[in-house]
């Protein structure tokens, strides 16, 4: 049985005037420790799908199974990282990264030490008592990663977490996230519209078409790219080939 099973998801948004089908007939599985990217034009329901998988949103139809059981938000099964850090500006970094533990009543000396240890490991030693606004964008997004990982989620949702950063910070952070996830052998799903990022970070890339969103094509990343860090992968010759392939597919999806 697969680690994560997404079974036949349909989702429709209703407004007074319209009923918009955002997702249609989405089924796939993800294995434990795998890194999967959802790539697609804007408005293809990528974020909706992430919200459904993390059970923030109930799908109109379909089911999500994590290790054979339905996902529940109260068990902290799924960690979610947003486009921006959304660190609470009135809380110190320490309070921010311990928030998840506090909310789920898991805060004790051991989990606290683990979270602080992770903060140090990710290169943010000594900022515990600072407020988020005293940190740079990249540092804040790293703190947000620590916050997400602190509750030890089995599955990680990354909703364009690098899109608000400058290019250099983004490349560095891709490496760091990739390395951290490998270390803790986390399963992750990344939503992005950056083809390069998807290729460099993932084991598999799902290309979604829009209106309604469905899985158009699945690309397996070649073994030699998977082994490399995202930064190294970007310089590998296989990267260019697969970039061109995905680029063409994405072009063909663009509405004319």
């Amino acid at each position: 049985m697969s680690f994560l099973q997404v079974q036949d998801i349909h989702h429709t948004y209703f407004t007074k005037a319209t009923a918009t089908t955002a997702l249609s007939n989405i089924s796939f599985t993800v294995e434990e420790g795998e890194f999967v990217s959802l790539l697609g034009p804007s408005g293809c329901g990528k974020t909706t799908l992430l919200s459904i998988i993390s059970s923030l949103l109930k799908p109109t139809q379909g089911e999500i199974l994590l290790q054979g059981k339905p996902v529940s938000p109260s068990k902290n099964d799924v960690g979610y990282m947003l486009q921006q850090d959304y660190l609470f500006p009135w809380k110190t970094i320490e309070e921010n990264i311990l928030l998840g533990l506090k909310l789920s009543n898991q805060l004790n000396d051991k989990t606290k030490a683990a979270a602080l240890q992770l903060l140090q490991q990710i290169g943010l030693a000594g900022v515990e008592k600072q407020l988020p606004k005293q940190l740079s964008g990249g540092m804040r997004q790293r703190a947000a990663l620590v916050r997400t990982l602190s509750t030890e989620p089995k599955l990680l949702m990354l909703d364009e977490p690098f899109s608000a950063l400058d290019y250099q910070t983004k490349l560095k952070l891709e490496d760091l996230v990739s390395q951290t996830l490998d270390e803790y052998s986390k399963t992750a799903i990344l939503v992005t519209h950056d083809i390069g990022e998807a290729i460099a970070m993932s084991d598999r890339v799902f290309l979604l078409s829009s209106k309604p969103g469905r899985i158009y094509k699945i690309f397996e990343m070649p073994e030699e790219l998977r082994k490399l860090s995202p930064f190294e992968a970007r310089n590998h010759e296989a990267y260019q080939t697969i970039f061109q392939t995905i680029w063409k597919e994405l072009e063909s999806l663009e509405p004319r």
Partner: protein
Amino acid sequence: MNQDKKQVELLHKNYLNSLKIEKRWVRFYQAIIFIVFFSGWEILSRNQWIDPLIFSSPSKIWNLLLSKIQDGSLMTDLGVTLTETILGFLLGTLAGTILAAILWWSPMLSKIFDPYLVILNAMPKVALGPVLIVALTPGYPSIITMGAIISVIITTIVVYTSFKEVDPNYLKVLQTFGATRFQCFKEAILPASFPTIISALKVNVGLSWVGVIVGEFLVSSKGLGYMIIYGFQVFNFTLVFLSLLVIAVFATIMYQLVDLLEKKLIKE
């Protein structure tokens, strides 16, 4: 290198100096306005260019102030009005915030009460004065209620709006951690709305004074509002002006205290 550093230090010193000088000029003009206003008033009144019976004069007010401090009657009236205003102000703000929280908690309730809030907000609350006085007996309860009722609806509306405008992504973060609705309120909604609540407090300081003074006009037994209405009835306008000036001073103090609270609470 050292030369450069000295140069920068010198420039910084100049900059600080210019700030100091500017501040001094501002204070100077503020003092001028104050002096011109009161001495002008005194001169106009002494020379009978304005009717001293109606406009009184600063010296008369000052003398009345001293005698009223000596016989203790000012302290009693001031104490009464201050207590009523502070209680009315706190009650109004607290009740308004709690109502806002209830509306946020239940979207259904907020939809139901929406038109009633609009009506209540549009209605001049002081018009309820006579009813309150009869219903709650003339005295503290009815006056404090006046002070509270005048600010409660506008506080509810303003604070509820700010609750709704909190970035939903903060709630999303909390929900991914399995937060309950109460936890969402406590961790995100309320702290994110502190600045709005504080600015509501500032508005409420002024409103509560209005409510209490009008209440005292109607009840007419003690307090600064009573001093005004009494002075008006016996045609002692020195008394009226004394009361007005005391109100101005204490309303300002209250406002400054809220300002101080703001700086304490919001560390930015």
